[in-house]
């Protein structure tokens, strides 16, 4: 399994600002994902972070709102832009290993006031 860390672990932000979340993996991985988990809910996939190319976004999520970078095989960032209270969620990064098992980071708990 991979060891995944996220920064920050939590933050409280004001409406209209942006927050960048970092995800670091202890080994090189091909597939990295970003999920959102709203309070009391399951996980919703935001996008697949592709190394060296633009992220692949799921329906309902757009690059202007959630820009993603993937500069190498161990690191990715997700930015939540122009935040509103509806963006208050836990944001999780995950990786896929060679046997298609998915491992998650500890999450970033975001509160927008």
């Amino acid at each position: 399994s991979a060891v995944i860390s996220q920064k920050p672990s939590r933050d409280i932000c004001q409406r209209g600002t942006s927050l960048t979340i970092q995800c670091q993996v202890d080994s090189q991985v091909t597939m990295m994902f970003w999920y959102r988990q709203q309070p009391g809910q399951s996980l919703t996939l935001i996008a697949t972070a592709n190394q060296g190319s633009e992220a692949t976004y799921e329906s309902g999520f757009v690059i202007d709102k959630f820009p993603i970078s993937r500069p190498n095989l161990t690191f990715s960032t997700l930015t939540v832009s122009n935040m509103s209270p509806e963006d208050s969620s836990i944001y999780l990064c995950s990786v896929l290993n060679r046997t298609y098992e998915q491992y998650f980071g500890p999450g970033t708990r975001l509160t927008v006031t």
Partner: protein
Amino acid sequence: TQLLEQSPQFLSIQEGENLTVYCNSSSVFSSLQWYRQEPGEGPVLLVTVVTGGEVKKLKRLTFQFGDARKDSSLHITAAQPGDTGLYLCAGSYGQNFVFGPGTRLSVLP
């Protein structure tokens, strides 16, 4: 769109009781994973089942994948307060995953 349903949605039991949670779909998956998520943490992978009819045991947890690879169950024997958490199933088809809504389990001492 492939969907996963989980039941029950909530479950509160006493320590020492047994329980089963279910994960169902009308779609066939190449594999299915179970996760447990505790408050303030990310989901932790418990098991992956791949073969129809497969049964895997992890201490007091028993996982079964349906013969048709559309459904799965998780059985916990003699539940303990440390089993408390959100149990998520996720069906995969290649590199794509779909998550169920989760079963929130509370084991009371």
